[in-house]
């Protein structure tokens, strides 16, 4: 993990590719090129990429694109996808309207 986090390691210049306009995260409409560029902007971790681009933060919460994003980032960094830590799983698992959170039962914490 240390090697991954070492931002002084050169990963080379961003080289445009013919499939850069391919949409990867369809919920947030983020392309492959944007994800690759984000890595070159210094976002080496999935969590960073998520915060930077909002990939995997839409309706499906990364259920569709999670593996794809990992693959693209890993390739750009020259590592194996399994070297990358998954995005942090958080509640709620599914999109929930704010008004429903307002209905949350009371006095149940503890």
């Amino acid at each position, binding site marked *: 993990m240390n090697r991954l986090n070492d931002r002084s390691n050169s990963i080379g210049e961003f080289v445009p590719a013919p499939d850069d306009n391919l949409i990867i995260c369809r919920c947030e409409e983020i392309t492959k090129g944007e994800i690759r560029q984000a890595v070159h902007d210094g976002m080496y971790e999935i969590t960073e990429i998520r915060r930077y681009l909002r990939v995997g933060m839409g309706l499906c919460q990364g259920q569709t694109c999670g593996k794809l994003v990992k693959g693209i980032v890993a390739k750009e960094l020259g590592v194996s996808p399994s070297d990358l830590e998954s995005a*942090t799983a958080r509640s709620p698992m599914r999109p929930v309207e704010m008004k429903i959170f307002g209905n949350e039962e009371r006095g149940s914490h503890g």
Partner: protein
Amino acid sequence: MERYDLVVVGAGPAGLSAAIEAAKCGMHPIVFDENAKPGGQLFKQIHKFFGSKEHKAKIRGFKIGEELLAEAQSLGVKVELDSIVMGLFPNKEITVKKGDAIRHYKGDAILIATGASENVVPFPGWTLPGVIGAGAAQTMVNLHRVQPGRKILMLGTGNVGLVVSFQLLQAGCDVVALVDAAPRVGGYGVHAAKVARCGVPLYLSHTIVKVEGTDCVTGVVIAEVGTDWKTIPGSEKHFDVDTICLAVGLSPMSQLAQMAGCRMVNDSRKGGTVPVCDKYGETSEKGIFVAGDVSGIEEASSAMIEGRIAGISAAYAQGFLEQEKLEAQLAEQEAALESLRQGMFAPQNRRKTPTETEEGITVSTNLLKHGFVADNEIERFPGVTHTSGIHPVIECTQNIPCNPCQDVCPKGCIRVGEHITALPVVDNEVPCIGCGMCVAACSGQAIFLVNEDDGHGHATVTLPYEFLPLPEKGETGTALSRKGDLLCEAEVVGVKTSKAFDHTNLLTIKVPADMAYKARFYKRQLPIPCGTKAGE
């Protein structure tokens, strides 16, 4: 907040099985599922399952689901549907969204049995309406009885791709091709053979270059891939299609386990990020169990056993089961699981390509490359024999854990033996009575009854037939080869339907004697009256 002995997340095969075992031990489990109906993916599995009796072999998936549900209900298991488990928090507390309300529950033990989701693969046009998951297509045809499209291309030749392709054909869709970037068919050969003999071509070492269309899918271009996984220029093929189904693997939905702090591991053989668990299904977090696809992609039969193991273990951990009983019950379940995890497709053998069967027979390369066993390959398998009179011909050529053919034969003509993955052997010393039980029982639809010569230069072939409308006795159509090529004229001389066959009809066709070992399917060639659509 409500408290339960055991909270199960997911009412699929693993979750229901766990709840059943826990309830048998005296626990009061509650099962949550986000769907409107319980059963997970079981209720859309209309095909017969593999395995042995203890694995519910030759029973259709949805029937197994019905049995599980009935058993759970009879034991008083509470199943809450349309209930989304939003989070799993410290001290095994969960929040559940149902309707407009969020409720809190606490489980003394928790079982995560959330299953998996379908993978996708991006290519130009993959976001067009008409590109769908194979599982979604299966839900549409088998649960909602809606065709996802008229002309369909399937990407992926694992069991999901093969099984769903066949079911799309059964639903009256036109499957124009199966495509896989891998050089070999990924799923069971018998599943591939069912699709191939219907005339669907398989393109291995091929991938989708692009999907065409502006508002929806109107066509697709595929091309051959080289050993460097790049497409070979000039190898492009075009198909007019309105639907692309993606059957490119599953990913465990393991986020709840991660949220709960369970130690996770990224294991590509298990399909992605999964919680680490011991043989009891318990994760690194005491009292949190996992079972089924969420702990590693397998199939429903093993998910049910994993669920039972987790249910039993949870009962023991909470003091509902004595250690002696725990060990006896676990030993039984582990043996059942072990026997399923055998053969060429066992988890430990994934990505290996055996060149020989366990018996030392050279495998059919044509089956792996094109989805059907070639005429010059079929004779070397022990289920394919020659004798006078009617006899079974078993085109089962891969070692998979399955043996219903042996169990159903009332005469004992068919032998698999103790080792459940062994290829079935036909013993011609024992006369076949032509009852057809083996033809109907074979989950792979790989058994045929053949009478090589009726004395007048003709042969009869009895084949499993699961399409509607049923051909009628006396009609004439066309016999198809294993590849699905039109072979010769065929007269339907028998149509047998029986409750014991469980919706697998037995069609007997008469063909020239030299076609006895070539004719393996029948195509109706009746004129369709004007103004009606196929399937009406």
